[in-house]
């Protein structure tokens, strides 16, 4: 293999700037999409555990739709299809007036997609709580909303923190798909350097290292959070 290594190119302008900017964009997208996913996902997941059949149906519908269409296809729907169905004024906003439409479309797409996964975690977290906890809380005189607020959600979230960590890492990694809409995130930055320099190993190695490091960092961070939020003794065996 006759490849001329040039690790220095990574640190030359403008390449270093592209990588830095791409990395920041990736993180921004992941964090913003995660906020959407957590809010929407908790809501949908809770809906699925209610006794009300209509609420349940809505939750299920959302989850099934967003879980069974590939993310890339969803991004295309959000970007190329949904705006076309809007009234003209709204179209103009989402296509032009909105700052950075590619970025925000990706964030919304990623957020809604991940929300379905979060919803499933929240649902399973709540459902893993022994039925008796709900009965006990109701028997005390709590209203349904209070039962969720004080008992089911706090316990449910704690039990699914590890899976939620996985989902966060998922959204972090999936943000790379935004490059298909033209967002200059980390993977796209690596590609751009490759296109400009015809060196592929160095930029992709840099991207790989960055992705891995963030993953490692998040995992160790969440270990700490897990330890902090762990219920003294053990939830699973509190029977």
């Amino acid at each position, binding site marked *: 293999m006759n490849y001329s290594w040039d690790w220095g190119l990574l640190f030359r302008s403008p390449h270093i700037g592209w990588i830095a900017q791409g990395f920041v964009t990736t993180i921004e997208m992941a964090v913003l999409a995660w906020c959407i996913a957590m809010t929407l996902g908790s809501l949908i997941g809770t809906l699925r555990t209610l006794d009300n059949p209509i609420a349940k149906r809505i939750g299920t519908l959302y989850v099934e739709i967003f879980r069974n269409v590939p993310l890339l*296809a969803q991004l*295309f729907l959000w970007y190329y299809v949904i705006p076309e169905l809007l009234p003209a004024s709204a179209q103009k906003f989402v296509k032009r007036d909105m700052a950075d439409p590619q970025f925000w479309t990706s964030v919304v797409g990623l957020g809604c997609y991940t929300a379905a996964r979060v919803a499933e975690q929240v649902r399973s977290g709540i459902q893993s709580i022994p039925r008796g906890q709900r009965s006990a809380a109701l028997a005390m005189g709590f209203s349904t909303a209070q039962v969720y607020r004080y008992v089911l959600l706090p316990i449910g979230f704690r039990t699914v923190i590890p899976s939620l960590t996985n989902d966060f890492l998922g959204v972090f990694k999936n943000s790379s798909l935004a490059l298909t809409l033209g967002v200059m995130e980390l993977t796209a930055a690596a590609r751009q350097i490759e296109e400009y320099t015809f060196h592929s190993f160095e930029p992709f190695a840099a991207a790989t290292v960055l992705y891995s490091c963030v993953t490692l960092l998040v995992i160790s961070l969440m270990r700490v959070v897990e330890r902090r939020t762990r219920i003294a003794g053990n939830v699973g065996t509190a029977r």
Partner: protein
Amino acid sequence: MSGFDWNVILNNRGLLLQGLAVSFQLTLVAIAGGMALGTVLAMCRLSRFRPLAIAAGSYVNFLRSLPLILVIFWFYILTPQIVGHPIDAYSSVLIAFTLFEAAYYCEIIRAGIASVKAGQVNAGLALGFGQFHVMRYVVLPQAFRNMLPVLLTQAIIMFQDTSIVYVVGVRDFLTAADVVANSNNRPVELYSVVAVTFLVICFTASRLVGRLQRKYAL
């Protein structure tokens, strides 16, 4: 928007169906490859020989920390340079998928084995079964049953993931639809068809998995 144009779909159904076939084919090959390699990796991870377990564990964790798209790029652009002879996009994507999915299957298989309760192993041992026989008659059959739904669910996820080969131009279903959408200027129709098709296939499949799970629940 000027009305939904069914004709563009009908006229290009050949191209679209071919794309769908490619997606299925990719899924099947990657499942087979990923499962085989994943089982080997799981055995390595559970092995008492520490270096092997650590090596397998590092591999799994490393790949799981990367976006699939990046792995596809790696293999698409770099393997030909490494191995020194040309590899077409389809093969490079197959390699990427197999190696990538193996990491996920490894974890599923490992969790399946861990899900068998320690009491069952004790019961097997107490009867006089050897280690190997306990694995063979007690642990593995239960482990497999426990993980079957997850294995199948992973297959459905992988089927959806095949759409990512779009970035290297392999003509899967989404890419085919994209080509038709672009050349006919009909993105709304084509992307909607892609979404609905995936929705129907994956939803049906996950329902079947659910039914299977209920049937074989221990």
